[in-house]
């Protein structure tokens, strides 16, 4: 596959995942507006913005007028993440970026995938955020997630499992690794042992029911953190994402998975080993924080290694023998 096209698929996958990640967080958080004290909500916004690595557009402080915070500031905080043209990481911007990439991939992209993506863009571009907000603050993120799930479904149904698909999904999981690590970092730093925040995080990561089956309904932050780090059956756990990355790399470059391992395979193996050996048992916050900081750095490095190996490699290395 053409290296530039592979990179475009990879980035398209990353943009999808970014949009979905933000929508998922907003869906959960905005769903709590109805019954959560304002100061707890404000704390949640801080954690959310911290996890996304973005400075909030307005100050997140609850004044005497909690109502004003709920109605006005929450709207501004949500709008910034969804549709603000000033925010390069807003959901709409990620959708635009994914569509721009898709335009360059038309020869490889099934028509249905393109039209689904294109229709989604028109819908999001023209949708009335204030109107959705009036119907329910989390109704728009929920619809965004529906659109993204539809797109994922069309991709799964229509794309052959070739390198185009592999790079697209690889992008999704590399992005997921980075975003989920940042999420766990933010929650470890800001939750202060608050089990409610961890309950919410398990919900955001589609892991609450599974957690209850493995442990119990009593949520212990250390258990929840370990669960989201190392349970290989939870789609949003780090372990799950690393395993998917390893599988995809094996498909893209089967020879690279045999010894001596090529750089991306080696690095993915290191990430897998780190999760499985360093975090067998619940650990102290400080240790986990250090681990996550290192892990985040390794995830960024994984991206660089993939690009260097498959896209920007030296020409001499690529010549046919």
């Amino acid at each position, binding site marked *: *596959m*053409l*290296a*530039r*096209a*592979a990179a475009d698929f990879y980035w398209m996958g990353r943009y999808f995942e970014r949009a979905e990640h933000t929508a998922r967080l907003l869906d959960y958080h905005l769903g709590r507006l109805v019954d959560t004290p304002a100061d707890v909500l404000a704390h949640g916004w801080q954690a959310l913005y911290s996890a996304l690595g973005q400075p909030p557009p307005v100050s997140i402080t609850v004044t005497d007028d909690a109502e004003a915070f709920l109605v006005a500031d929450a709207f501004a905080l949500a709008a910034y993440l969804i549709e603000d043209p000033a925010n390069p990481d807003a959901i709409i911007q990620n959708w635009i970026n994914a569509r*721009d990439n898709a*335009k*360059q991939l*038309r*020869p*490889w*992209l099934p*028509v249905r995938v*393109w*039209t689904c993506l*294109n*229709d989604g863009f*028109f*819908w999001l571009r*023209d*949708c009335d955020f204030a109107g959705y907000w009036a119907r329910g603050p989390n109704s728009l993120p929920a619809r965004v997630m529906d659109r993204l799930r539809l797109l994922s479904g069309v991709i799964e149904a229509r794309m052959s499992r070739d*390198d185009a698909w592999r*790079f697209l999904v690889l992008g999704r999981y590399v992005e997921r690794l980075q975003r989920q690590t940042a999420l766990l970092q933010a929650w470890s730093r800001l939750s202060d042992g608050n089990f409610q925040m961890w309950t919410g995080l398990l919900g955001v990561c589609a892991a609450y029911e599974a957690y209850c089956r493995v442990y119990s309904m009593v949520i212990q932050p250390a258990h929840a953190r370990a669960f989201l780090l190392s349970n290989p059956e939870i789609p949003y756990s780090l372990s799950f994402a690393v395993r998917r990355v390893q599988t995809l790399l094996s498909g*893209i*470059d089967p020879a690279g998975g045999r010894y001596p391992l090529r750089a991306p395979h080696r690095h993915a193996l290191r990430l897998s080993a780190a999760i499985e050996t360093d975090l067998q048992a619940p650990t102290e916050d400080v240790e986990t924080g250090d681990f996550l900081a290192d892990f985040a750095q390794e995830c960024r490095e994984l991206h660089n290694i993939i690009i260097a190996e*498959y*896209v920007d*490699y030296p*020409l001499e*290395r*690529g*010549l*046919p023998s």
Partner: protein
Amino acid sequence: MVSKADTSVTTSTPSPGNLGPTAHLSFDRARPSVASPAVAGTGAFTHYAIDSRFRDEMFRSDGTLRAATERLGTALNNATSEQLMQLQDGVRRRFLHEGITFTVIGKEEAAEQIIPIDCVPRVITASEWDHIDQGLRQRLHALNLFLKDIYHEGWSLRDGIVPHDLVFGCPQYRMEMLGTKVPHDAYVSVCGTDIVRTHDGFAVLEDNLRVPSGVSYMLACRAAIKQAMPRLYRAHNVREVLPYPEQLYSQLASLVTWTQTPRVAVLTPGRYNSAYYEHAFLAGEMGAELVEGRDMVVHDGLVFMRTVTGLKRIDVIYRRVDDDFLDPVTFRSDSLLGVPGLFHAYRAGNVVIANAPGTGVADDKALYAYVPDLIRYFLSEEPILANVETHLCRSTEGLTFTLENLDKLVVKEVGGSGGYGMLVGPHASAKEKRDFAKRLRADPANFISQPTLALSRAACFTDGRLEPRHVDVRPFVLRGKEDTWIAPGGLCRVALRRGSLVVNSSQGGGCKDLWVINEEQRSL
């Protein structure tokens, strides 16, 4: 801005007593009622005014339907305004959803636009088309021989068929091509020739031999219209244009001599190019690679593209990049779109480039005037398709005539395209004419003039009603190792603004499907 309604799916259910939407056109199970034939100026064609100055594609001069358009015109006449609107909306929405776009040069704020499509097809009979087909084959054959001649022996120049300075002074003439062997002498593998129709018949307006575009819109129009009016389409027994991509692939692949399984790539300037949609479309349909200059490298005289598993050789490049930008080592050194060393690989015979560099000299608007002579010279035949009367401003008589008749003529730059840099005398203001006259006097060799043609008009559904609009057609001709293949149809361009003669999409034009119908019709 596209409203929500634009992206929603609308459906309509036939009600008792109602034939359902476009019953005459679709596969609606209800039988159409007894159809009343259309007459210009009545029924659905109330606003359709016949103008005797222009040949009408739908109606005869007495306002009755032509034989070829009887079925289409009758179906349109029996559809309500709402049904026609629904039809038009359906094809337009299809273009929107599929992102069938073009880019308008110099309009940053609305760079990417959906190409306007009209839902009413233009109809041409098979016998009329066969005449065009033969004329195009003849023309392309002669032009290929001419190109081989000027880059080798130059007999046509020595014999005075074409002036030396017209060829050697043409910016598209490539000295580097002198003596270069072109695979199977197929200098032009893809040609798009603009053909107009007047009361005098069909005539060639210009040849596009460099990187003719528009074929994707032809195919998209056909797909959209087929879906919108399947019943009528089937009944008309229309000749099929959809095999174009596979024909393009096989014609390009046939030019390769060193392998049976060549790797074909479409070279695009990138996503900001006005025809990027088309480049991506063709690559996808052919199963070819869509590459940019930065994806390729020349090594040991071979051309490679960078894949995820190393460099892979490319055998054929269907380039959609102008000569100037193909290779910064040979042509423009500041080009970032090309591949350093590509021309060296081409001269060494290690890659096929279609169309060959230097073909632009034969689609220069000044050289156009000599094409009938070239046909006579190289083929010893009379031209099947006529040329439009052309005055070369490079000659004193041509310049004088042009300046004296500026208000009646269309003046074009010899190397211009896309409707830019031209003056339509009858529609120009006094100031525009004065300014253009200055430009003419300053550089007369850069201009030609032609009479303002009475382009034929076809029915269009515009502003909620059926009205005539001026049209032309760009058929696409493919030439490979031995064969020439012509898509039986073409991009029918339409000047959507009332009275306008400019059909270019960048200047307010749109497109419509062109049906070449076989004589024997199927029953509805």
